């Protein structure tokens, strides 16, 4: 098999790390479902089938300075940006130590300032203008960082997508818009969401380049996001990238997808499971041998086991902690 990553300037070690992050995200997601079905955690929102795009994109960014505004399926992105499995597990169990929200938000509402993971909400696509604002701050202060924002194809119909993308285009801001087109907005398929063939067709209206790419191939996503980041850092403005993929699970643990899509459609999509495809790549190019793979799986299992035990036993927030942090509290008052 051709070593395509060489042409992208990626070392074997980096590609192995990309695969490991994808596998970690998948195994963590699978564990979350087990914990949910066994009654230990109330809710799961899944990223299965989207790991390639997420990891390919995250590795193309500068993970020491760029800002990311993920949406709720982006566990693999936040893992790439320094959030730990333990921290994600603390969020799943709604424990006090959860760095995303201290047990205030549902899982999948990521946020961690030290890793420049910008806090998000549930109304979709509100994070798009925020990403544009962060990019505006970067441009105003002549900083190098770009902002990177993701959303689904359904969300791309929101006004905030249009308003944010247009603003970024007008002011040529260093922001990368990544649409993770997983074919479904809960139950509604893409042909009921978009009148255009592709989300990326809209880019021309915002004066930015738009690309539709294979979201099951992390190297392809890496290539496009890297180019978009380079453009942004050169001051050439934003880019819209649409990565096509397939949501392999129901929308959430509260959804039953059998009511709106055929089982054989899902089975067929599994033939293009990005984790399986990239496993083939790393195995056949000799980046990962059998022994290393076994060690990787064991290591991941151990990390997830330890995180699960830790999070399960960690304390909940005290009830009255519900009252904290509505406004800045005394010791943090500003310059008044």
């Amino acid at each position, binding site marked *: 098999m051709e070593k395509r990553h060489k042409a992208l300037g990626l070392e074997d070690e980096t590609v192995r790390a990309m695969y490991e992050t994808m596998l970690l995200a998948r195994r963590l997601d699978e564990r979350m479902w087990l914990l949910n079905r066994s009654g230990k955690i109330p809710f799961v929102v899944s990223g299965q089938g989207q790991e390639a795009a997420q990891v390919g994109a995250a590795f193309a960014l500068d993970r020491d300075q760029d800002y990311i505004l993920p949406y709720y399926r982006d566990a693999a992105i936040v893992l790439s940006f320094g959030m730990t499995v333990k921290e994600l597990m603390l969020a799943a169990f709604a424990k006090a130590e*959860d760095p995303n929200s201290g047990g205030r938000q549902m899982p999948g509402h990521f946020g961690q300032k030290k890793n420049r993971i910008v806090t998000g*909400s549930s109304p979709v696509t*509100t994070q798009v*203008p925020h990403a544009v604002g962060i990019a505006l701050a970067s441009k*105003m202060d002549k900083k190098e960082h770009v902002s990177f924002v993701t959303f689904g194809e359904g969300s791309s119909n929101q*006004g905030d997508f249009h308003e944010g993308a247009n603003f970024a285009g007008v002011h040529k801001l260093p922001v990368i818009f990544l649409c993770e087109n997983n074919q479904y907005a809960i139950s509604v398929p893409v042909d009921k969401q978009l009148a255009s063939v592709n989300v990326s067709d809209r880019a021309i209206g915002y004066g930015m380049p738009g690309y539709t790419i294979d979201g099951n191939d992390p190297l392809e996503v890496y290539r496009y996001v890297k180019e978009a980041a380079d453009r942004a850092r050169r001051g050439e403005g934003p880019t819209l990238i649409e990565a096509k993929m397939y949501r392999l699970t129901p929308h959430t643990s509260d959804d039953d997808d059998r009511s709106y899509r055929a089982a054989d459609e899902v089975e067929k999509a599994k033939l293009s499971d990005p984790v399986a495809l990239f496993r083939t790549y790393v195995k056949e190019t000799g980046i990962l041998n059998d022994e290393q793979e076994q060690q990787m799986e064991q290591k991941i299992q151990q990390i997830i086991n330890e995180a699960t035990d830790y999070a399960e036993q960690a304390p909940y927030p005290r009830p009255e902690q519900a009252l904290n*942090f509505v*406004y800045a509290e005394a010791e943090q008052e*500003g310059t*008044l």
Partner: protein
Amino acid sequence: MPVISYIDAVNMALREEMERDSNVFILGEDVGKKGGVFKATAGLYEQFGESRVLDTPLAESAIAGVAIGAAMVGKRPVAEMQFADFIMPAVNQIISEAARIRYRSNNDWNCPVVIRAPYGGGIHGALYHSQSVEAIFANQPGLKIVMPSTPYDVKGLLKAAIRDEDPVLFFEHKKAYRLIKGEVPEEDYVLPIGKADVKRKGGDITVITYGLCVHFAMQAAEKLAKEGIETEVVDLRTVYPLDKETMIESAAKTGKVLLITEDNKEGSIISEAAAIIAEHCLFDLDAPIQRLAGPDVPAMPYAPTMEKYFMMNPEKVEKAMRELAEF
């Protein structure tokens, strides 16, 4: 001390804060070259340049959302909504995002954004250039809503809003812009957000209000004083969260309370104020709590007859005050 207009105080506060802190910047529709449709930002584009006085696309949710994003990474954006009536497309950004950013992130992130908007009627603005919108935001913990009445308060409170670590909605009465003038120090000062101001002391009745209505109450109080009726006028200044202490203290002192807003009556700021006083002052009250407000119709009509009927004015205020005093 120089006497300047309400809108000049807005301009002065913005200019001084932009000079003080390079992170402060302005964004909105027509705020740049034109200096704003009311000229609130006049001269700032010339002084600070295009990058700090940003003419945005005509899209209010982006104005709020972009400001929120910039605020989260350390900037001090002051976003202008051209009219308070046009803030509606940005409500999701203000309520779901700005108000909740600190709380939902367990204090990891915060959002020190200021959103300014001219509100209020009496300027032939009809339904969509006259509204008071504060009640929409006044049950959203995480937000602060400031509505000053005088140029002195405008300067001190707008500076405080810009320096605040949390999101502040700053509503300016557009009829007050050029009508209301007052002494404003040239030096730097801030006034506390969340504190009402007793604009006039008196022992017979209490009027609690904010914005342009403060001036109507002051005029009426002057007249009634000649008849021996002493009015205490409490200017809320911050309508959310309310300064309960000052309201309760004054209500307990006079035992007669008139609450005034230009907004529709039901579910208004003064409805909450009435509930607070009812909860705390039952045995101090000598009369039912009175509310004077706009009628419960959607918004202010255009024809001068109907506009005048809707709009608060000194006569309506004086009448309500006299009736309460005589109760």
